[in-house]
């Protein structure tokens, strides 16, 4: 057998294309999304590869220099390099949105399992609360929380995570309810399996597949909310490098022609959100076709 890197690459490539043929356009959407996400994550993890400048350095270059030369995306009014701020800003946004999604999912899934499984009054009350929060515009709730908690990475993460708990709750509860009725669960109960066993070994694994998809879409949404909050001036102190804040600060320079201050941060937010969305949508179609076509 031939194990050279070239042939390995060739095999990866051919498996890609065969998947593509099998699933069609959704596969390529997934691949594109994954590529974007991985690219940006890589940039966040190894920023020094991407830029020699420090995002806080107020003497990186001339003031308000347009893109070009040493400054790929220009400089801002405090003479900081914009590309450096983009690279380091990715850390902030990824950190907040992924962490928020993790917190949401952990709380939402466990509550959904509990509620769906126990039923009764607890289920009713929890469902009512969750439904009310679910219907409410997430951004407004996030704004309220962020304004009250004050600026800080932990605060904004918490503010963002609260909004998505109902999403996981509803999904998992619904699934739990239907799986609970399945024959094999009844059978397990008949054998004498404990509730914890049933929850953990029968219900949970079945629920996981769908939550993965929701998780990626959740991250995409969390990215949008995080950027919106910081754009509004809530959630993070200005000493943290963040795309949303750079957008807000660059807004003033719009009529003066310094377009690069807002074009690039906005582009990156869109790109990152798009990456996760495409990943999620692609996964959804492949794992369970027509799942999301409500």
């Amino acid at each position, binding site marked *: 057998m031939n194990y050279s890197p070239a042939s390995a690459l060739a095999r990866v490539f051919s498996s890609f294309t065969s998947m593509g043929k099998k699933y069609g356009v959704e596969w390529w959407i997934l691949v594109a999304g994954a590529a974007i996400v991985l690219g940006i994550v890589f940039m966040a993890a190894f920023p020094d590869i991407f830029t020699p400048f420090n995002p806080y350095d107020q003497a990186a270059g001339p003031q308000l220099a347009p893109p070009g030369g040493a400054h790929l995306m220009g400089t801002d009014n405090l003479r900081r390099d914009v590309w450096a701020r983009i690279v380091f800003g990715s850390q902030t946004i990824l950190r907040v949105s992924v962490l928020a999604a993790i917190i949401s999912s952990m709380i939402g899934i466990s509550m959904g399992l509990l509620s769906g499984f126990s039923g009764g009054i607890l289920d009713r009350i929890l469902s009512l609360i969750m439904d009310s929060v679910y219907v409410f515009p997430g951004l407004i709730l996030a704004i309220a929380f962020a304004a009250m908690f004050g600026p800080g990475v932990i605060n904004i993460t918490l503010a963002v995570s609260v909004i998505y708990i109902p999403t996981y709750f509803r999904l998992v509860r619904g699934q739990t309810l239907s799986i609970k009725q399945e024959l094999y669960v009844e059978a397990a109960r008949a054998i004498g399996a404990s509730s914890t066993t049933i929850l953990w070994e029968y219900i949970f694994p079945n629920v996981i597949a769908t939550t993965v998809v929701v998780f990626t879409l959740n991250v995409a949404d969390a990215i949008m909310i995080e950027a919106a909050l910081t754009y509004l001036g809530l959630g993070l102190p*200005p000493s943290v490098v963040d795309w949303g804040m750079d957008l807000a600060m660059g807004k003033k320079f719009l009529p003066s022609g310094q377009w690069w201050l807002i074009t690039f941060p906005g582009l990156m937010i869109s790109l990152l959100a798009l990456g996760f969305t495409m990943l999620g949508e692609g996964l959804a179609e492949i794992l369970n076709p027509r799942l999301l076509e409500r």
Partner: protein
Amino acid sequence: MKSIKLFVFSMVLACLTILPTQGFAAEQALVYGTTEKVIDMDPANAYDFHTWEIFYNIYQGLLRYPPGETNLVPGLAESYEISADGKEYTFTLRQGLKFTDGSHFDATAVKWSIDRVMALKGDPSWLVTDFVDHVDVVDTYKVKFILKNPVAYFPSLAASPPYYPVNPNIYPKDKIVRDPTELKGGKLVGLGPYKVVSFKRDQEIVMDANPGFYGEKAKNDRVVIRYFADATTMRLALEKGEIDIAFKSLNPSDIKDLQKSDKVQTITAQGPYIRYLCFCCANEPFDNKVLRQAVAAAINRPPLLEKVFLGQNAPLYSMVPMGMWSHIDAFKDAYGDGNMDKVKELLKSQGYSESNKLEFELWYTPSHYGDTEVDLAAVLQQQLNATGVIKADVKSAEWATYRDNWSNKVMSAFLLGWYPDYIDPDNYTAAFGGTAGSAGLGIYFSDAAWDKKFNEGQTETDMKKRTAIYHEIQNNWADEVPTAPIFQGTLYVFAQKNIKGILLSPTLQFNYGPIERVK
């Protein structure tokens, strides 16, 4: 059927696009754009410069500053006399003046208004209650103010809006008025060169020239103040010729572009508005004056202004602003700018070094002073840290929390700004350095000798002696450094090229009367 509907729809659309966009014969009016906001239309509670500016034009004081000047001349009062002990001021009022609703103006109105201000205890009421004991009506047109102590600058106090007489028939005695709709008759009624025709908060105020005004008639018939929510829109409106004047507050980048533009004219004046760094002198580390001196020495004003304001505004080396009599560049003489050697020397003498840095939190408030504050703090931090012996962390709090924080001594170093209440060095010094004022602003500096000096400055009437007193105060300031001045604001008014008569005075009093549009 469908095609008829389409036809009608497109005709309507076509008609609408053809019609011109001028509604409400607005071409003649002078439109003055601003991003400021009106809070309360009540001299008893208004304490912001924009509302005061409106009052200068729709109301009048007993004394006033002519447009663009800093010397007081008679206003509603023709003359005044001071008693020998300096505690009684008797004003002789002009006769035959009427409010815009026809009611007569006399000494009773003056007393009524002052009593109202004292009773309502609004934000600026201290400008009256700290100085005035009570007011007596001597005659229909003679009113006497009895002061608690002699005050050298009382006349300039009397020219400020809290002292403005209001119409007793219109204003409620027992509550503060926010909107004109709360007044009897629903309209603002005054004695000034303009009267308010329509008012919509945060949108516009339409004012027409008042034919019954006792002074020079306004050169224009109608002035409209148009409120903009953000500077960018205002700048664009000015460039497109949609508004005639734009004043307060444009972004530094807008100011820079407009200054270069040949479509608009720029009028600048040195503003009386100062920005400075405060220290909490009650707690560590800044209870130690050497450390305060060190931080003051580290501030490098010119590059800071270059970065944050694109070079606008002026470096300030004393709490008393430039243009005010008695100003000296005390801090420049003592420290200069970005004096790294001095910083290191001072800090090392207190035991700090590169391995043992002076650490503290530098606070600012993100929106109260405009959105350049973020940048100001960032640049200042960088300057302080660049010394190598300081480690400053930047923190922020919204205005409400900020005020809480300074009362609770939470902030060791914080940025503050000051617009004067009255034009006198006392307002720039005692307010921060006197025991009472200092505590009120979270600085907590207290020195009995200083208090004595401030008192001397307040009561002394000889100008030469007062100047000497304030020189001494400023030099002491550079030594003790309860606060370190950073810059003084420059006022920028932009207008279309065909607008004449914009007179901006350092008192920030902007009169609309002299403005006219020439062909």
